[in-house]
């Protein structure tokens, strides 16, 4: 399915010159949302043709399609808001790792199937509550993208959540693999809820509602599923961070080297 025509994006955003702080905060916010989805969608797409059952090849590709589709809309809007001549493709294919704004969680290699579905679950639940808020944004392009993404994310939460339960409460081996995935991923979850001046500027300008309630709601839903999966929430510890300011793991650069190869090798070519 090709990317929907970006009819609502590409036109100038209604912020005045005196709002340049707000404008650049909005660009940053859109890059964060877009990069999270592009990087995670890319990781999921790595499963295509190699899933544990054919049904999962289809389901994971489906989620990857949703995420990359969301990323395309968000990055196009980021480019239009920035108004410096960059579209979604330029942002996706011609930025360095230090310019990417995704959380570290999504760039970690795909791991085994347990790692993939636990990560998807942890991300999708947070995304769901964030999008619910963002869909009420007064910036109508952003609100529209969020509303569409929210519907897709509802399915992602259900699909990944069901697998977490099946794997956690399946065999000894699946239980151990799923717990180990959860233990490894937990330290990367805090970054999803970290807020800074970018969020404050947008909340202050009334463009995005206050999202501080996302974390407790995320934790409640995650805890419920983890318990039903007979798994244990890892002990609280230091939360890794850095992605929002371009301080990534080593994995992202390798991923981008692969993703960007054609755009980097044939500067200016049309595809």
């Amino acid at each position, binding site marked *: *399915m*090709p*990317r929907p025509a970006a009819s609502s994006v590409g036109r100038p955003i209604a912020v005045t010159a005196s709002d340049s702080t707000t404008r650049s905060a909005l660009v940053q916010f859109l890059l964060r949302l877009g990069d999270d989805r*592009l990087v995670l969608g*890319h990781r999921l*797409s*790595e499963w*295509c*043709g*190699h*899933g*544990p*059952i*054919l*049904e*999962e*090849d*289809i389901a994971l*590709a*489906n989620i*990857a*399609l949703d995420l*990359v*589709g969301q*990323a*395309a809309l968000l*990055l196009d809007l980021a480019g239009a808001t920035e108004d410096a001549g960059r579209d*979604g*493709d330029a942002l*996706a*294919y011609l930025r360095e790792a230090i310019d990417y704004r995704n959380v570290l969680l999504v760039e970690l290699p795909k791991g*085994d*199937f347990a790692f993939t579905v636990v990560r998807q679950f942890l991300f999708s639940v947070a995304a769901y509550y964030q999008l619910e808020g963002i869909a009420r944004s007064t910036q109508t392009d952003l609100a529209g993208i969020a509303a569409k993404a929210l519907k897709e994310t509802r399915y992602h939460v259900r699909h990944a959540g069901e697998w977490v*339960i*099946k*794997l956690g*409460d*399946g*065999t000894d*081996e*699946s239980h151990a*693999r799923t717990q180990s995935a959860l233990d490894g991923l937990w330290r990367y979850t805090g970054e999803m809820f970290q807020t800074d001046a970018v969020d404050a500027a947008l909340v202050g300008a009334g463009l995005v509602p206050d999202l501080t309630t996302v974390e407790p709601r995320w934790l409640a839903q995650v805890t419920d599923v983890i318990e039903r999966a007979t798994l244990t929430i890892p002990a609280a510890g230091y939360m890794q961070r850095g992605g929002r300011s371009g301080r990534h793991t080593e994995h992202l650069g390798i991923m981008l080297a*692969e*993703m960007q*190869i*054609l*755009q980097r090798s*044939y500067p200016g*070519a*049309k*595809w």
Partner: protein
Amino acid sequence: MPDSPDAVREFEARIAAGETIEPKDWMPDRYRKQLIRMMSQHAHSEVVGMLPEGNWITRAPTLRRKLGLLAKVQDEAGHGLYIYCGTETLGIDRAELVDQLLAGKAKYSSIFNYPTLTWADIGAIGWFVDGAAIVNQTMLAKASYGPYARAMVRICKEENFHKRQGYEIMATLSAGTPEQKRIAQDAVNRWWWPSLMMFGPSDKDSPNSAELTRWGIKRKGNDELRQRFVNLTVGQAVAIDLVLPDPELRHDAETGNWHFGPIDWDEFTRVVHGDGPLNRERLAARQDAHRAGAWVRDAAVAHAAKRAAAADAVAKSAAA
């Protein structure tokens, strides 16, 4: 017990009258076997076919191309699933069919044993391989076995979309930079002949053709379909300024067909028998995915059993 001659006669009369055979209808044992062979080969081809194209999903050059390719490969997985389900109506399990593939006992379309070397291969596969599949499957959509025919109708719609997408990639590359044009032409050079081989050997050399035709599974011969594909494709190549790698290609005013040069059937036989460039790698990739996924499938079964036992216990305590 061999099929009774009367029953076979009655069955063949139904076929001759253009009736559709449905899963519950009586059918000769050979008909069932031939269909299982053909349909499972088709399903395997869809699934193995995900590998050469999947190879470029992470390197697709734009977001739109990434979405298009991912959606296409996802469609192929769907086709595989759909045709496996259709094959199951003949009384065989998908698990058994998959085991045959993984054991190297089942065939799949040989074209997928060739490597995808550049992005242009993604265009060439869509244009040629999906294009050839459409010609073949349009014919199979009239097959005498209902579930297969219906699967083909549905699948063909998507294959048409894939073909257009592939052709559009090639058109874009051909009109692009000299380097883009070069990879486009190179992909055409590599994929053209294997695509012609997709229709299988000449009918006179094709062991199954007579029986498949008599029972209405195949409505047209391999050579006829191949010719149709060539006739359709020549003009498309001209339109986007790419050259099909066949010096003998010329229009025959008498037949209205495009005459093409001899196919290298030795290459075809070699690839079918396992010595294509990537036969081993393709099979190994499927085996690896299956092996690595075993614990996932086991977990799903174990969890379902636990759920069933729990539901059982609830029902019993309610009854008590």
